[in-house]
């Protein structure tokens, strides 16, 4: 039943409701696909027994003509979300053996909506990375290869396992998180759809914290509609997260087909980077033409502080991370490496438990927050962050949404860019601004480059206006008509 794993969530949901298929069939097809694609290293933990039990429960509910919005739909969960009684490592050695006694709000909402859990997905350690090579569990491989090439490519990161599993049809959709681009960049690298909603839309409770003022959960799926269905279930106010927005969740699904007629779309001139590959600019031009054809008008806008977004991010994110990661002390959970004194035990545990990129960021964060440097680095970065938000606020006086490329390149080979941290950081150049300003952004596949690799377009919306983001994303999806699949999946 290969066809089952090629269905969209929307199609599968309709087929389940009409009793044309059962969740047990759908789930076992995905468990088989999960086994067959083990070479991608997309999963940290597979939970087949749980999946079968979830499917049986869903089938019983569906038999009564009842069920939630994701009843019987098999999903994967990024290993950053705490799942009760199930290993949760955040891709780190320091969380060895950690089985949370509680469930994250977002994953709990998905189970309430009837979803089936297939397992926990690999990721960059503590979500710090753009290639999924920093995971303690080893790199994830992108199911895509260059035309005629055999080099293994990165799936992007940090939600690399989520994106790879969705692209490989091992899961119908997956949870992910985005601190600087970790949903949108891997989605672009794998020909999938990923949305980071507005900061505060999804509860962060029970998600292992990286940079609390930037982290947001969101879905990766294969269509804009599927991502809307998932985000609908994941969103909503949670008193357990003090930054969760106490606002009603709009009907995202209904917004998808709203169209773009009459919308004004901003094209930020600062995103036309010097030295940007022609294929990226060409795709962007195509996207502009597609939206015009669909009835939108495009306006050139200026976001003058764009070039400072990444350096701001690399002060604020490490600063918050150094504070958040202080909890890994070898006392309460995970790894402990003994030492003669308590301090030595802390130092040994953290030296052995954290990988190179995490150590680098914790040290940078500690430095920029240390006495004498706080004003020069941290406070200055926060002021420039205000200016970045102001750029967007000004722009949204004249436009309804903004169109940009999602990434500055297609997926690169595993091992490339890994010796220069700054070169790796530049992957997030188009995505990081939305995190700093707290805005929703979606990445939608726009086509293939000359090497046959997917490229993505990004739509950034106003705060709490995911509806317009979905509508514009859908217009791009329709025009792009992206039907390509990684070789071997057809």
């Amino acid at each position, binding site marked *: 039943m290969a066809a089952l794993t090629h269905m969209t969530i929307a199609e599968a949901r309709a087929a389940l409701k009409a009793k044309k298929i059962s969740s047990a069939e759908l789930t076992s097809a995905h468990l088989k696909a999960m086994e067959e694609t083990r070479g991608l290293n997309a999963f940290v933990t597979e939970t087949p027994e749980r999946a079968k039990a979830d499917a049986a429960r869903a089938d019983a509910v569906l038999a009564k003509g009842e069920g939630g919005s994701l009843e019987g739909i098999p999903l994967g969960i990024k290993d950053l979300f705490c799942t009760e009684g199930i290993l949760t490592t955040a891709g780190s050695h320091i969380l060895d053996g950690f089985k949370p006694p509680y469930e994250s709000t977002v994953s709990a909402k998905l189970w309430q909506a009837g979803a089936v859990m297939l397992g926990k997905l690999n990721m960059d350690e503590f979500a710090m990375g753009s290639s999924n090579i920093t995971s303690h569990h080893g790199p994830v491989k992108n199911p895509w290869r260059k035309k005629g090439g055999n080099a293994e490519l990165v799936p992007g990161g940090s939600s690399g396992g989520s994106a790879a599993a969705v692209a490989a049809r091992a899961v119908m959709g997956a949870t992910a998180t985005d601190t600087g681009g970790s949903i949108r960049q891997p989605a672009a690298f794998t020909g999938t759809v990923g949305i980071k909603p507005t900061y505060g839309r999804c509860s962060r409770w029970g998600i292992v914290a990286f940079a609390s003022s930037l982290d947001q959960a969101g879905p990766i799926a294969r269509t804009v509609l599927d991502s809307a269905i998932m985000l609908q279930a994941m969103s909503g106010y949670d008193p357990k997260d003090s930054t969760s927005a106490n606002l009603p969740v709009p009907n995202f699904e209904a917004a998808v087909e709203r169209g773009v007629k009459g919308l004004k779309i901003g094209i930020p001139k600062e995103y036309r980077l010097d030295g940007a590959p022609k294929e990226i600019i060409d795709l962007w031009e195509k996207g502009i033409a597609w939206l015009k054809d669909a009835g939108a008008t495009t306006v050139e806008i200026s976001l003058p502080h764009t070039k400072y977004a990444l350096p701001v991010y*690399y002060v604020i994110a490490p600063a918050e991370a150094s504070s958040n990661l202080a909890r890994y002390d070898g006392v309460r959970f995970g790894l402990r490496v003994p030492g003669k004194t308590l301090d030595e035990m802390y130092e040994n545990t953290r030296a052995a438990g954290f990988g190179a990129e995490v150590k680098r960021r*914790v040290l940078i964060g500690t430095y920029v927050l240390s006495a004498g440097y706080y004003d020069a680095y941290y406070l200055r970065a926060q002021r420039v962050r205000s200016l970045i938000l102001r750029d967007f606020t000004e722009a949204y006086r004249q436009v309804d949404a903004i169109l940009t490329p999602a990434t500055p390149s297609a997926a690169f080979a595993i091992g490339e860019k890994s010796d220069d941290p700054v070169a790796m950081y530049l992957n997030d150049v188009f995505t990081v601004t939305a995190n700093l300003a707290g805005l929703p952004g979606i990445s939608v596949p726009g086509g293939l480059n000359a090497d046959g690799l997917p490229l993505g377009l990004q739509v950034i919306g106003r705060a709490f206006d995911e509806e317009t983001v979905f509508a514009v994303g859908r217009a791009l999806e329709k025009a792009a008509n992206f039907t390509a699949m990684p070789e071997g999946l057809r």
Partner: protein
Amino acid sequence: MSLDKDTVRKVATLARIKVPDADLDNMAKELSGVLGWIEQLNEVDVTGVEPMTSVAKMKLTMRADDVTDGGDAETVTQNAPEGAHGFFVVPKVVE
């Protein structure tokens, strides 16, 4: 800004991460590279600009000061590398 070995050693101690002496030079080079790149922020005129301390304009909500959770030491300590009787066990701190 370039960091020297001693600064890296000090920061590593603050962060409670053991960095072997042999690695300090390389670490100093890497961190200096990143910090040097960050320093382009000095070009920006931030006179009179408030630091952004909250992403969404929202007030933190108040709640009644009631005990609503807790009393479950076994669950809290179940993931500890070493625990006993509902307590975390650490190396001896007081001689």
